[in-house]
């Protein structure tokens, strides 16, 4: 059981390439962030504007869901290689979370 990785030294070209890729990724992250801020703004504006509740609630919940997906997939890299098992458990967690919420909002009805 190897506890240290066998050390690998990148060539200069490889290194430059990796740095480029990382910067590109970082720009990507900025975009996600901008989207998140934007979604938040929409959500707050919708509420401030005072549309009908039935309209707003699904929309802001959807906006929240999108933000969460952005966080999980971009900031937290859930879709990257080697995340298969953890993604599986996250989804199981979300599934249980979902039925828990469903149970308490629908079944405690009085």
């Amino acid at each position, binding site marked *: 059981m190897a506890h240290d990785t066998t050390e690998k030294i990148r060539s200069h070209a490889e290194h430059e390439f990796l740095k480029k890729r990382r910067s590109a990724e970082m720009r990507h992250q900025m975009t996600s962030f901008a989207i998140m801020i934007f979604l938040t703004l929409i959500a707050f504006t919708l509420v401030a504007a005072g549309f009908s509740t039935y309209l707003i609630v699904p929309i802001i919940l959807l906006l929240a869901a999108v933000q969460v997906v952005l966080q999980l997939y971009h900031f937290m890299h859930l879709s990257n290689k080697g995340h298969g098992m953890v993604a599986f458990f996250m989804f199981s967690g979300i*599934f249980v979370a979902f039925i828990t919420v469903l149970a308490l909002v629908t079944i405690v009805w009085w």
Partner: protein
Amino acid sequence: MSSLAQKKGVGAVIWDYMTTVDHKKIAILYLISGGFFFLIGGVEALLIRIQLMKAGNDFLSAGLYNEIITMHGTTMIFLASMPILLGFMNAIMPLQIGARDVAFPFLNSLGFWLFFFGGIFLNLSWFMGGAPDAGWTNYASLALASEGHGIDFYALGLTISGFGTLIGGINFLVTIINMRAPGMTYMRMPLFTWTTFVASALILLAFPPLTVGLFFMVFDRMFGANFFVVEMGGNTIIWEHLFWIFGHPEVYILILPAFGIFSEIFAIFSRKRLFGYTALVFATILIGFYGFMVWAHHMFTVGLGPTANAIFALATMIIAVPTGIKIFNWLLTIWGGSIKFSVPMVYAVAFIPSFVAGGVTGVMQAIAPLDYQLHDSYFIVAHFHYVIVGGVVLAILAGTHLYWPKMFGTMLSEKLGHITFWTFFIGFHMTFFIQHFLGLLGMPRRVYTFGADQGWDLFNAISSAGAAFMAIGVIVMLINIVITTVKNVRVGNDPWEDGRTLEWAIPSPPPFYNFAQTPLVRGLDTYWIEKMEGNKKGMVYAEPVGDIHMPNGSILPLIMSFGMFVASFGALYFQDDSKPWTLAVLIIGLAILFGAMLARSLKDDLGFYIKKEDLIEDAKRGGNTDGSK
């Protein structure tokens, strides 16, 4: 620091166990403390049966009886069955996947000590003003009305030990995901490892709702919150949901490892590979999955409405299908095999009809309208003791005999083992079969007494007599353990002679690093394959002999757990005006906890290396060191 075996004094041994991070020693700790709690829970069960022996008995008072059933249920489930199973997982699973240790040895030890202190805390309630008395389900309206501190002990004690269990679950999951030996694909894992995996996943997903529910209980009772206080807008059904969202998966956390143990036994003692391995694996996963969608079958009579009841009734019934798949695959495993009736196999064989009987009554209870009659009657008591005692406890007894040589290097007596089996088995059916009919005749559960005019006398007497047989069985087993330990006849790698998986390829007990060389796994039942191919070493190695990295022992897990233990006393008495010291105790406890955590994170603990030379030296002496360093 070398792996040389040396004689040690009692003190050194105790210190060794207090600081150990070796999964095999932690397994022993789990086994001892779980076994201890099993005896306590068993004595409580005997008290219950003595009280109910005849109509109008006054052996126990009403309040005391409620405390005893509550502690019996809680102890048996949280402090006996689960820890003992965790013990087996710890002892065997890493060996089965060819790992040198679990993923987080430190956390492994922390998990144990949290469980241990939680259990002690809970049981201290007996001596500190009364035990919890609202049933193991602790329904909120009664729990809030309960006087004294019993319920507080329950809520805090289970919180502590719950953290321990959660940590254990995560640890096993990561171990299985990351630390399988080369060639050990998921679909080559032994079934006990698979069930450990799924049960741990259930622990991971089911304990959070319980923890939250317990927190609400703690805050309602100790800090003036109103989650369940109806006059203040609270709702007691929330507790019921949170408890059962946890509670139903919990019963599968218990039964799945039991299934795993039996799967191993059927294969070994029939000399045959498991029939339908793939189906068994998928059935395990399916049971785990469905386990989360049926909890409201414990709440059919709450008044959730017909739609909810119908949905949950159907969802519950579906679980019979994957469970049936397992039963039939086991039957086909022994079919055409060469069955040897050693003690573990006797238990496994007895398990099938017993568990099926308990399972089918479960399906009857899933019929919601019928459950209106059965719920909270002795029929339910009969059902769950059939599945728990007929499934989990039989598995624990079987596992004890099966893995005793692997864990301790000695063989429990077959003769005494058979005596234990027969007395326990007969007693078990005698106690619980008749309870089905008590339920149908209208006897509610959780009653401390019953009138003579209701036609329940005879059956209760029979039931109580059965419990005595079980007690005899347990006592014989204790004697067996003592005799075996005193005799101390050592055994080899594969004492059952038909071992199929990796744990039987290494010495009993294994050296503390488990595998001098990591094995290469060439298929399902890898050790069997090697044996059949005449490989004398029992395995193929994936690496040359080299230095092995091992973790250091640490006392910090014990200290952290002790910190939580202390803090809990502060919280417990928080609202008692007569005790001004509570806040201080709370703070001291938390300080110990966080201090130890900080010490852990600031001090780099990089472990140590066993030198190649020592390993070779060790191998010459049979590889049988005790792991001291």
